[in-house]
């Protein structure tokens, strides 16, 4: 599977969400954008939650650390974490090289209905990145 960045939704805080549907409802696969990874550079550590944890949109669910700084990861959606990419912290080079497929971080079963309305499409997110000095 190759995830197309232009078809993803984005939070202002640089997380991407790929929304899919199964028999029980909507699931968001969540990662961080290539722009964010390039800005952070030199990733050294990642702290992830365990599945089963509930998150609110905009709430911190983990953190990633570069040589210079600690950056919290915020969930773009509300719901329950149903899967965590637990191999990722040991493969941060993989996250850097392939942020949209190998680099997925968590999957969240979405609880809020209007939740994803506040997210940006790829074009809007690209505008934000260029304003931030990409």
């Amino acid at each position, binding site marked *: 599977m190759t995830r197309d960045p232009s078809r993803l939704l984005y939070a202002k805080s640089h997380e991407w969400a790929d929304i899919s549907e199964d028999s029980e409802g909507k699931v968001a696969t969540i990662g961080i954008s290539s722009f964010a990874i390039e800005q952070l*550079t030199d990733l050294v550590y990642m702290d992830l939650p365990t599945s089963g944890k509930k998150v609110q949109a905009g709430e911190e669910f983990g953190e990633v650390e570069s*040589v210079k700084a600690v950056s*919290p990861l915020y969930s773009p959606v509300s719901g329950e974490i149903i899967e965590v990419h637990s191999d990722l*912290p040991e493969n941060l080079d993989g996250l850097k090289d392939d942020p949209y497929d190998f680099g997925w971080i968590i999957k969240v079963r979405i609880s809020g209905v209007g939740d994803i309305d506040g997210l940006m499409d790829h074009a809007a997110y690209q505008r934000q990145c260029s304003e931030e*000095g990409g």
Partner: protein
Amino acid sequence: MHLAGYHRALPIVNDTPLAVTPLHDWHLSAGARMAPFAGFEMPIQYESIVAEHQACRHSAALFDVSHMGRLRFEGEGAAHLLDHLLTRRVTDLPVGGVRYALVCNAQAGVLDDVLVSHLETPSGRRFHMLVVNASNRAKIARWIAPHLADFPTVTMSDRTELTAMIAVQGPQAIAVIAALFKSKIERLRRYRAVITEQFGKPVIVSRTGYTGEDGVELIVRAEEARRVWENVLLAGRRDGFRAAGLGARDTLRLEAGMPLYGHELSDQIDPISAGLSFACNLDGRSFVGDEVLREIAVRGAASVRVGLTFDGKRPVREGCAIRDTNGRSIGWVTSGAPSPTLGRPIAMAMVDASAIDSETGQPVAPLEVDNRGTLQPANVVPLPFYRPVPT
């Protein structure tokens, strides 16, 4: 996530525009991430802090350190004035000599750590140069001003804005750039400095640095900065020279066990407690802070600066509390980062002297660091963390 405060346009902090160095345009054109530091907009990194760090360890790196303060003292008695204000003797510093020293207040609190050089121009004028931290430049100039009244023949001039300072650091630095200078700088010993020429223009070459590597620090006129910078980069292109920002400078000096003012040093700590006894010369001297330092030298420091390493990958950052196994807080981390050379988190910390066996340097009981709520075991190791292989 929040992307830390990097920016590419000149911001305004507290309504005061940030100062820029003579190399500012070069940094922007190289795509540097800029951030405010001590009133200057400085490059934090160009591409990767780790790549810049490794270039310095294996080849050489160039650092724009023009933000550091450069104070020049001239006239009869300049050495005596500085001798009165520094923890190390200045009166016997020969022409061409450089010393690391502290400026203390009367309570022996550290006001700054500095390099003092004794230099002579080609026309035979001698002067002393004090290189001070950017964040302390105004404070130190103010601190010295009243003492100048006691030395009416001495003048102090702030050369910071008229000049630029470029550090070239790494095992390849000297061999590659020696040909750029009129005098044979490869013969310059460590902690020696000379005024020479580069393309017919004056340059102070000092065999000093803040990375743990061999190398030089160059002081040139501001208008020459870009030419010198580009010449050095060009000379080292095939050997992998890179421009490096303050991010790599910080990880390099941390591996080298070197203190940074505002982290390991402040006016709340004396040089002996900060582990800088080597930079205090108390024998037969009188200088500001000497009495308190003598008392501390006799009774022993209340705290010690230690090196820490950690297992696992999670970086330990400044401010983390150090605890003994009873949960008692016995100190704090003053600087911490993932070490590119060691491949694990390292830190320097100030801990109660009673927690460390002065014979072995090891803790009397195991230490843990409170890393934002998670306790991580800390290994106490001798400083520096890194020493270059002798050549």
